[in-house]
């Protein structure tokens, strides 16, 4: 593998970092007045790298070498699938951010740049086929995310969210690093392929500890129970566009990373991680469903909803089959769109002066004030609950199918039971919107960009989405096929 081919394979990372550094200069000289220009340029950069990721989506493994820098980085169909979701999440964040921040004070030109660098880090994460690449990508993403959470530094809740995320995130990084060093010590390599090969001869106790620590560190990043404590606080405190970002792109990236680590690196010792993932999946589903019931803030509710959804995604991975992993990837794509719609709708909940309304009680009678918005919210809530005609059901369906096929019927049964509990709090929001007296808190105009995002997203999660089941399934299968060592 010579250097030029390697550099060609990391082209999208080069474009993102080049754009990021260039726009940083624009921001330095233009100041906050250039913020909107920088945002538009950033969205264009994200679109460009998304287009660059498309050709390798359906890449078959045979014949084309996708591995760069001596197996540290892979630009394969799996990475491209995850990257498209990441770039989507980042672009939506940049679309909704300017108005929010201008309303809240000042829109800093550094915001879009940090989002770009975070997207770069996430792209590196999902392409990582080496523990070092994994860690470097994760840190790049995390550091940018800590700053984004604290972006409204005069707002106490935002500063608190940033600090909490930073302290707990550093702890998780430390745990992850400890796991990586143990894995390296007992397998002799940081390369996923070499770890796979080494573990196929047996599992030393030290390496088992390594697996546990690596999974714990990654579970923090996807906010799986028992590493979820930060999620509600950070989701509530962070500025809403940033919460939109956290709920979409980093979730997709960390989930894809976890899948790749489990299958590519630890794939020869499936039993070792399967029970950990299973426990995390069930706990996430149950805690996510029960924790959301008492919430009065819509962002906190969505945080618990995301914990719950992560549980369902982990369930597919816990099945331990490639079909289960493909199910998780399908779920992930649907989940990202549902998150985009739900937070897009939350951003549209403003009072007459354009200030954000976050309390669920204030949504009373939304169906009379803004019937369109209420319908969109209702649709996304039903979809998150997994109620059949909507597309959210399909994600749960493929995951449960894979779990049942792998022979874990009790696992599926508990999951389905918990999703019924989960339906309760989604329905509670709908009840408040449709059957309660108008609270008189909601008003103001909806912005065209928000409306467009919500409408397009709603079309995707509507029954029309089922037209996409075929292509989505094929993409997921093609992505998963890149994970096995051929």
């Amino acid at each position, binding site marked *: 593998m010579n250097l030029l081919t390697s550099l060609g394979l990391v082209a999208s990372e080069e474009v993102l970092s080049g754009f990021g550094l260039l726009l940083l200069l624009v921001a330095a000289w233009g100041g906050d007045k250039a913020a909107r220009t920088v945002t538009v340029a950033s969205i264009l950069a994200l679109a460009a790298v998304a287009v660059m990721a498309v050709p390798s989506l359906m890449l078959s493994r045979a014949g084309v070498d996708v591995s760069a820098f001596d197996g540290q980085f892979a630009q394969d169909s799996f990475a491209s699938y995850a990257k498209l979701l990441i770039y989507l999440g980042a672009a939506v964040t940049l679309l909704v951010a300017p108005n929010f921040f201008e309303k809240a004070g000042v829109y800093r030109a550094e915001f879009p740049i940090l989002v770009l660098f975070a997207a770069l880090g996430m792209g590196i994460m999902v392409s990582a086929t080496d523990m*070092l690449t994994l860690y470097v990508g994760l840190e790049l993403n995390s550091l940018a995310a800590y*700053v984004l959470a604290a972006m409204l530094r005069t707002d106490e809740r935002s500063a608190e969210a940033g600090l909490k995320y930073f302290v707990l995130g550093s702890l998780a990084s430390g745990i992850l690093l400890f796991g990586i060093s143990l894995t390296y*010590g007992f397998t002799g390599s940081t390369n996923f392929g070499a770890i796979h090969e080494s573990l196929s001869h047996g599992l030393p106790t030290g390496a088992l500890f390594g697996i546990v620590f690596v999974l714990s560190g990654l579970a923090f990043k996807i906010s799986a129970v028992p590493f979820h404590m930060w999620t509600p606080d950070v989701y509530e405190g962070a500025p809403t566009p940033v919460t939109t970002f956290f709920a979409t792109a980093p979730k997709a990236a960390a989930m894809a990373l976890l899948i790749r680590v489990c299958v590519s690196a630890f794939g020869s010792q499936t039993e070792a991680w399967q029970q950990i993932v299973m426990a995390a999946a069930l706990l996430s589903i149950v805690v996510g469903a029960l924790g959301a019931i008492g919430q009065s803030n819509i962002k906190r509710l969505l945080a618990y909803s995301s914990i719950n959804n992560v549980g369902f995604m982990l369930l597919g991975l816990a099945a331990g089959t490639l079909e289960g992993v493909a199910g998780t990837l399908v779920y992930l794509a649907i989940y990202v769109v549902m998150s985009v719609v739900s937070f897009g709708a939350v951003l549209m909940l403003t009072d007459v002066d354009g200030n954000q309304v976050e309390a669920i009680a204030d949504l009373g009678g939304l169906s009379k004030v803004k019937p369109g918005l209420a319908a969109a919210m209702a649709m996304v809530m039903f979809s998150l609950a997994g109620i059949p005609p909507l597309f959210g059901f399909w994600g749960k369906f493929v995951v449960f199918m894979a779990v049942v096929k792998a022979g874990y019927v009790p696992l599926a049964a508990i999951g389905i039971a918990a999703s019924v509990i989960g339906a309760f709090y989604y329905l509670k929001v709908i009840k408040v919107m449709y059957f309660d007296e108008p609270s008189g808190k909601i008003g103001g105009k909806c912005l065209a960009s928000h409306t467009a995002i919500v409408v397009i997203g709603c079309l995707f999660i509507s029954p029309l989405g089922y037209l996409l089941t075929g292509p989505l399934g094929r993409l997921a299968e093609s992505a998963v096929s890149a994970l096995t060592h051929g």
Partner: protein
Amino acid sequence: MIQLLAFYLFATLVIVSGLSTILARNPVHSVLWLILAFFNAAGLMVLVGAEFIAMLLVIVYVGAVAVLFLFVVMMLDVDFATLRAGFVQNAPLGLLIAVVLVAELLLGTGAVHSGALVLGTADAATAAPQNLSNTAAIGALLYGRYLFLFETAGIILTVAMIGAIVLTHRKRGDVRSQNISQQNARRPQDATVNLKPGVGQGVEL
């Protein structure tokens, strides 16, 4: 022979200066002893053939870290007498921790040497290249095989810097900053007046 002599010289000095670091009454002296310890540790590194680490010790630890310590010690008004107040009281606890650490070290190395702990063997690609100096070997790996990670680490540092500036920098209204072009554009007639006050009359400016 000269190597052995140098080893004992450096080793003794490291231990002496390390002890002096924690025993010196004056914190500034402590930092100076620490710098001496770093220099001697660097000497030990040269003796075992790790000249790159020796350079790092001198450049990073002496050049940056110790100087930073010195700044902190000299700038902050820390009352070291109160910090030391509980020394005798807490000494048993400190000794206990030291004993535990030493025991762990011995156990760890013992386990590896007795063969109870089977560590993985490093794959060929990560093995050290032969007949190259330390510095050249590390450089070849860092700018060759690990080029991508090295550059990404650079981006991480950039992001950390952006973050620090975004979170702490703000425009303050009460600061009078220097505007050089405005200063240069100022002419004598703008700033001075020529008056001829009569005797016994004040000047009104």
